[in-house]
């Protein structure tokens, strides 16, 4: 799992306050570095923006890709997320972690894109199905598609690829809200508290919905494993 419980990288700008000393936790140091970056971003410092993009692009892209299932759409939406951050940095008041705000922006953009795709007659699940089909094709020895080129894999695990394809396929069939919770918790590794801040749901609702989503996914995966 790509976990957000892990510390994100070295502090984004690589220099936590020296006066802070060792009494600060990693999370506090990260928050100080985030605030400093945001101050620079609000002043129009393009280098700070580049640091933010490099620090968070992987996590944002992973969330968006798992929600949309289509690499092309995910790239476009992930770009939009950072454009929004650039244009609205001044509206972030620092009441939550910067990453929480960023994930909220990513989730909102993804939901809007799913709605847009639905309006255009593309079923929300279809992109994921496409991914699944293409990954299945990969497993059967066809040319490796470009969208998958960046994901490293064990050599001997064509089965692993198929499993991933099946998971993607079944996630696409989940209700959109359920899929979001699975992505945030089981793929991205957010805490329940952070999930509540991102989704606006209370923790109790998140727990019960996530449980239902997991049961649905478990049933679907079990059918494939038989």
């Amino acid at each position, binding site marked *: 799992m790509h976990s957000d419980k892990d510390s994100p990288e070295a502090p984004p700008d690589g220099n936590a306050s020296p006066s802070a000393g060792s009494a600060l936790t990693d999370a506090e140091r990260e928050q100080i570095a985030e605030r400093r970056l945001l101050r620079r971003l609000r002043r129009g*410092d393009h280098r700070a923006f580049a640091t933010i993009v490099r620090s968070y*692009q992987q996590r944002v892209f992973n969330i968006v890709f798992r929600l949309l299932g289509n690499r092309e759409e995910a790239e476009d939406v992930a770009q939009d997320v950072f*454009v929004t951050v650039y244009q609205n940095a001044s509206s972030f008041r620092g009441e939550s972690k910067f990453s929480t705000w960023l994930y909220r922006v990513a989730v909102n953009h993804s939901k809007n894109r799913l709605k847009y795709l639905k309006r255009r007659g593309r079923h929300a699940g279809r992109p994921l199905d496409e991914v699944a089909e293409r990954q299945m094709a990969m497993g059967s020895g066809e040319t490796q598609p470009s969208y998958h080129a960046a*994901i490293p894999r064990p050599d001997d695990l064509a089965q692993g690829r198929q499993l991933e394809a099946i998971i993607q396929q079944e996630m696409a069939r989940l209700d959109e809200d359920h899929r979001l919770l699975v992505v945030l918790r*089981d*793929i991205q590794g957010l805490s329940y508290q952070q999930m509540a801040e991102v989704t606006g749901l209370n923790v109790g609702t998140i727990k*019960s919905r996530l449980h239902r989503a997991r049961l649905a996914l*478990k049933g679907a995966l079990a059918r494939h494993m038989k």
Partner: protein
Amino acid sequence: MDHIRGQQLLSEYLDGDLPADTVAELERHIEECERCRAEVESLRATLTALGSLEPAEPPQDFLQQVNQKLRRRGKSTFDISIGLDRKIPFEAVSMVLLGILLALYLLLVALPKEQVTPEPPAAVRRDAGAGATPVPEHPDSGKERP
């Protein structure tokens, strides 16, 4: 603990999100309940499978793509670069330019009319002075004398 309650808690149990006493109670139930045992194992396998997904990586030139999109949307296109990646927002530059233009206007157009008017010649001044303080007309002026 009854079976239904046990089933409801399995997710939180696997997340390690239950208090110790509830965990102990649930584990006692799981030992006795074959269905819950099977359920917890298959849920655990599902979470392991989800956790095994490799993170999807953005393209190598992702930052460039974001910058291109920013330029296309006209946000940073007009930002003025003053050094290594340091930019002044377009709005600030506009305000300064407007200030300079206003100052130039005042200096070149508005002020000269009021303050830099050349001294008029003395004769003109006399005429002007006469015009300014006209000699009052005699009450009979304009009338024919008998």
